[in-house]
């Protein structure tokens, strides 16, 4: 049974964590294959020739890439428990909108806000703050983005924001604080308190060390490029 579902992922990637959680919520057995992104497996290259990225879900030999696409596939294929998306088309549209917002806007703006310098960074910090306010606005008055139970948007958002908190620690910045975003922080704490969700998070110190090392390497590479 475990052979039927394979997940190609990496321990540090929030996109990978999303899929782990989705599969666990559905009570599915799966084979997890840790990828070394500096030495990608043949299976990964064959399964995702277009992007060569993780996560990739392989179901009965059929590969699917792009975490949000994978989540929808999981939800549609295994409908017996823990629906990720609501049934109502409008509620689904709203959920897809926010998930897209996180992936296409929030993440990239956050990177700039934490990593850039000068005016670009200032602008990004402003934009990031606005984006977090929008997210808070969507969450306010609800237990989760999904309503009474957590769902698609919660899964999409939680691991990204947790990752950003790790980046924040590495950069010693204070862009996301409980004072500024009490609703978001309360929501994150709730999810951290959930055993299944927390089980998909990497150990915090290990994650911080990893991101720190990667940032150092990226900055060194950037300064070498500038010097050259």
């Amino acid at each position: 049974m475990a052979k039927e579902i394979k997940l190609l992922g990496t321990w540090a990637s929030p996109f990978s964590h999303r899929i782990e959680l989705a599969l666990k919520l559905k009570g599915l057995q799966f084979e997890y294959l840790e990828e070394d992104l500096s030495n990608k497996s043949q299976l990964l290259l064959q399964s995702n020739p277009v992007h060569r990225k993780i996560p990739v879900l392989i179901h009965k030999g059929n590969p699917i890439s792009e975490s949000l696409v994978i989540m929808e596939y999981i939800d549609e294929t295994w409908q017996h428990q823990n629906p990720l998306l609501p049934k109502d088309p409008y509620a689904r549209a709203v959920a897809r909108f926010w998930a897209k917002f996180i992936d296409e806007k929030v993440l990239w703006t956050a990177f700039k806000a934490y990593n850039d310098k000068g005016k670009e960074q200032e602008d990004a910090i402003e934009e990031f703050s606005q984006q977090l306010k929008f997210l808070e606005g969507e969450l306010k008055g609800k237990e989760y983005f999904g309503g009474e139970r957590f769902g698609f948007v919660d899964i999409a958002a939680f691991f990204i924001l947790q990752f950003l908190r790790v980046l924040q620690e590495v950069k010693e910045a204070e862009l996301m604080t409980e004072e500024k975003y009490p609703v978001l922080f309360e929501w994150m704490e709730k999810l951290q308190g959930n055993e299944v969700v927390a089980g998909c998070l990497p150990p915090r110190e290990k994650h911080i060390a990893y991101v720190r090392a990667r940032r150092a390497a990226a900055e060194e590479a950037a300064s070498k490029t500038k010097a050259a």
Partner: protein
Amino acid sequence: MEEVKLLGWWVSPFSRRVELALKLKGVGYEYIEQDLAHKSQLLLEYNPVHKKVPVLVHNGKTMAESLVILEYIDETWPNNPILPRNPYDKAMARFWAQFIEEKEEERGKLVEEASQCFITLEGELKGNKFFGGEEIGMVDIAANFIGYWLGVVQEVSGMELVTRDKFPVLCKWMDEFVEHSVVKETLPPRDELHAEFEARLGAPSWKY
């Protein structure tokens, strides 16, 4: 009483995607043209996050992001489906629609990369008339920019990326796309589009 409104901009391929989907399904709607240089209160109210078109309003419920809207349309009006029923095929269609979106975002990038994308897309046609098979689907709709707008962009910029000898399969798809009876209705007049892009000098920025 079904009330469907679409806030759009005649130049925008994203806006036209939604029109195309509504027309394919025979859904009547009120079209409200937006002036993106002077955004209306309505637009700002309906799409405060992005302040962009298209915005669909169905019985007072507002939604934004063209691919999200396409999925809503397909789920709400199931006739003439634009997504396959089978979850795996659906996942593939979503993957390709996203791929096209991402590549459009990066359109400023290297010619080489763009060429690779077109080669990849050609492969996806697999000898079919459309990405959706015999009939137009979500991926064809998502690729509308390539199907029509790209030609105009190439004329204005003088850059010939997609030529018949380099990309015969894609060009054949483009021919089929613009000839499709419903698609035709949603294409802005070529000369007007040309003029609009020329006025914007080189890289047209319809993403307001």
